[in-house]
């Protein structure tokens, strides 16, 4: 444990808990995101960051009795004059201080208008960074609809074959999943699936839309879906990228052996889809097998007595 590895041990239980929350674990915490404004951040970019913070990065603890909101994103209010692609030290410092491994940096200049850098960290060092340009932005406030409650887990859909063709796009897809997926849950309320984030890659642009889900009646159990536009919608253009080298990426993806899925023994499947199971039996004494009782073959008391007498005589003879 890292707390015991320190030269100066924590003196209070609270400090110890704080350190334990931040140390590397087998099952990791949910990633936090930090949203930072750059030197010149104009209204569009700030609005994007605010929307993402308010809407996407809140999470409700899925306990049915009460709702506890925990923010998974921190919006830095002050402007930070840094350039992520040149100097990553200040980003890494912030990440270490606030224990955030995802970040979004918004800025605006003449050369790169409405710039948004999305990135993630591994061990508080920058792993991947992708710069996106915002072309069209419609904010939450501009769309006058009823919004769904904050903090539900969104559904993510990626459309377009571009997302698998280039390495850039593949990393971008992985980064977006990481950013927007929210806490991992084991159960989900079917009525609570409220909104969907849809990313389409088309003609070099990425269209990001969020829709609210309306479940309509269909003839059978599964409802018919109707969508209603809600939430921020962005048209993004891929600009620069700073992707991690292959071996660093491989290192970050390494899964501990304990978390690898365990094989279930004694279960096999055949090509037709039938599942077979093996049962290992102990050796059975077939004479004591419980079979169907046939009343006609039951021994009558007279016969049983004669049998016993025979057995006794045999025993006497042997002795």
């Amino acid at each position, binding site marked *: 444990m890292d707390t015991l*590895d320190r*030269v100066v041990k924590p003196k209070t239980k609270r400090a110890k808990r704080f350190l334990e929350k931040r*140390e*590397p*674990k*087998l099952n*990791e*915490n949910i*990633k936090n995101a930090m949203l930072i404004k750059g030197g010149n951040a104009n209204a569009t970019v700030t609005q994007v960051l605010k929307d993402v913070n308010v809407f996407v990065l809140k999470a409700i603890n899925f306990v*049915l009795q009460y709702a506890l909101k925990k923010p998974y994103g921190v919006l830095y209010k002050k402007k930070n004059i840094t350039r992520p692609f040149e100097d990553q030290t200040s980003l890494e410092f912030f990440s270490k201080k606030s224990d955030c*491994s995802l970040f979004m940096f918004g800025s605006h200049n003449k050369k790169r208008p409405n710039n948004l850098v999305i990135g*993630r*960290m*591994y*061990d508080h060092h920058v792993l991947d960074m992708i710069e996106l340009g915002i072309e069209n932005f419609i904010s939450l406030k501009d769309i006058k609809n009823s919004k769904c409650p904050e903090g539900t*887990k969104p*559904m*993510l*859909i*990626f*459309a*377009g*074959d571009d*997302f*698998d063709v280039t390495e850039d796009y593949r990393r971008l*897809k*992985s980064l977006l*999943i990481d950013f927007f*997926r929210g806490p*991992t*849950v*084991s*159960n989900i*309320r*079917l*009525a609570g*699936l409220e909104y*969907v984030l*849809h990313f*389409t890659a*088309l*003609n070099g642009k990425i*269209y990001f*839309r969020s*829709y609210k*889900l309306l479940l309509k009646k*269909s003839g*059978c159990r*599964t*409802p*018919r*879906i*109707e*969508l209603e536009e809600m939430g921020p919608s962005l048209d993004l253009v891929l600009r620069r990228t700073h992707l991690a080298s292959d071996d660093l990426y491989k*290192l*970050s*993806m*390494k899964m*501990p052996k304990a978390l690898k*899925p365990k094989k279930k023994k004694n279960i096999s499947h055949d090509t037709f889809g039938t599942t077979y199971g093996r049962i290992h039996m102990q050796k059975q004494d077939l004479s004591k097998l419980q079979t169907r009782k046939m009343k006609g073959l039951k021994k009558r008391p007279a016969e049983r007595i004669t049998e016993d007498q025979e057995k006794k005589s045999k025993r006497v003879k042997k002795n």
Partner: protein
Amino acid sequence: MEGQSVEELLAKAEQDEAEKLQRITVHKELELEFDLGNLLASDRNPPTGLRCAGPTPEAELRALARDNTQLLINQLWQLPTERVEETIVARLPEPTTRLPREKPLPRPRPLTRWQQFARLKGIRPKKKTNLVWDEVSSQWRRRWGYQRARDDTKEWLIEVPGNADPLEDQFAKRIQAKKERVAKNELNRLRNLARAHKMQLPSAAGLHPTGHQSKEELGRAMQVAKVSTASVGRFQERLPKEKAPRGSGKKRKFQPLFGDFAAEKKNQLELLRVMNSKKPQLDVTRATNKQMREEDQEEAAKRRKMSQKGKRKGGRQGPGGKRKGGPPSQGGKRKGSLGGKMNSGPRGLGDKRKGGQRPGGKRRK
């Protein structure tokens, strides 16, 4: 007639079903890939419909989104559900998309000195109660920590023992003893920590900064240091009684390329003769040396085993250095290095094949 009506009914039922399902079916050329643990769907179909849509493809995007969402919802509704407090809840599978971790894997820490000893001896921690009855204050108190049961620094009356100096402050003595104990504990903790961190760094060729080194190790370290100058140790002076380093000559000697033709001819003919001969040639000196070395190693191994058996209690296997079938490759390959006594366990047994960390084959008395 009836047969026909039955068939008609069946056909009608099928049609109804199809109509019902029509509302929720979506036709796609390529199936979507689902990761239900993350509520994720990936559509690999090329967006041909959208390409011809023009600058504002909103309606087409929405239609595409609706289709994809419908398919995802269909998949989600097929998951096993259970009823939890008046709501229907679906159990999600594990997420299949692999995403990078945010922090590296936790490293296993090496055992502390006490843990190693306990493992060797087979000592297990005894289960103790949290609270102990304290007679003095007649209440249940902790076994250790703040306001513990028997705290000898907190006594208000201490009898001066018979052999002690009457002017000595017994209270201060107890407080001092406690401080010393705390300091010793802290020292041991830091030492364990240093050992743990040292393990995590690659070791610098067995050159330890603090004690625990044998004479040979120190000698070797000194030799390496001597030779690590710009002139490879030629101008390093030796102390008055220091002996010349052992085994520091040329490692291999090659014959000159041309010179003694007769000797060369003789050597090559001898080589051919040995290769052609049916019976294997025996080099008596090498054979006897090997035999003697093997006997030595066996004796050493036996002695070690006897001393180990004396120490161990219950036949529990100790870990670490005293493993019997030690890494054989280590013993065999270390010919050229300056002796290989780098904290490895019994290389004796593993050395049977090639023998020799000792340079030179002849046995020295």
